């Protein structure tokens, strides 16, 4: 394995980790908003 190849693998892993982190963050916010919406609907 050449250093270039290793760098590319690390870059791909970093990029995928970043996208996963963003998606998880968005999911947490979405679940929070869904919970609020459900509570509001229950009170209406």
């Amino acid at each position, binding site marked *: 394995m*050449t250093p270039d*190849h290793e760098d590319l*693998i690390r870059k*791909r892993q970093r990029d995928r980790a970043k*996208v996963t982190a963003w998606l998880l963050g968005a999911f947490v916010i979405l679940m929070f908003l*869904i919970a609020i*919406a459900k509570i*509001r*609907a229950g009170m209406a």
Partner: protein
Amino acid sequence: MSTAAPPLPADWRDFLALTKPGVMRLVVFTGLAGMLAAGPIDPVIGFTAILCIALGAGAAGALNQWYEADLDAMMRRTAGRPLPAGRMDRPAALQFGVGVGVFSVILMGLAVNLLAAAILAVSILFYVFVYTIWLKRRTPQNIVIGGAAGAFPPLIGWAAATGRVDLLPVLLFLLVFLWTPPHFWALALFVRTDYANAGVPMLPVVAGERTTRTQIGLYTIPMAIVAVAPWPLGLTGAVYGLVALAATAVFGWMAARVALRAPVEGDAMRPEKKLFAFSILYLFLLFGAVAVDRWLPL
């Protein structure tokens, strides 16, 4: 001692490509239109429903590409996809497709309602098992029956907003179902060589061009009736009715041209390409109109 280089992990953009974003646009739009036509819904719940429809469609697309990697490699139009191009391994595509599909159904069930989740699950399973695995390689009727998979989103959108299924979303389902054959057969007429090379029994490959043209004309008739029907049935107002009448007249004229034409050797297939392009715009127009009609009734 030298060791073989480990395979490159797939780029995240390739996972995105696996979901067929182009197809997803139309799926999301028809789902959104079905939901808006149904009436008011909490914006967060509505957003979640559309997200689940998009994820479900993406999962179905990924599983379709996982199963059809060999076919895709044989067709110019699809050879550049992540699996046939060798940018991703098949287990990764399978895990991604199953994971996203299961997630979309569970989220729909928990956040929206069980009926919408059930229809979403049926649509994913129908696309993967009935269309992709069972029909596509076996019969020229593949896209006729398989078209039902793409027709579910307005039904899901409506069910998400109301918790039930009524006549209008059923007509919207039938509209997409009957629209699919002329849409895909127009495409199949000008990419016939690709399908023939891959051994996919599309109608022009199996039954010939003449039969395909006749079938395009024949399917357009019930499609036109279903497209216009919501207005006289009192399910929509004049906004939808007039858009449906005008757009269906144009669709019918283009389909008739394709149906009655006999192309010569080396033909550029322009009417077929125009019908294919307009058929996409047609669905956007009708579904846009059905949503606008609900909020701006005349």
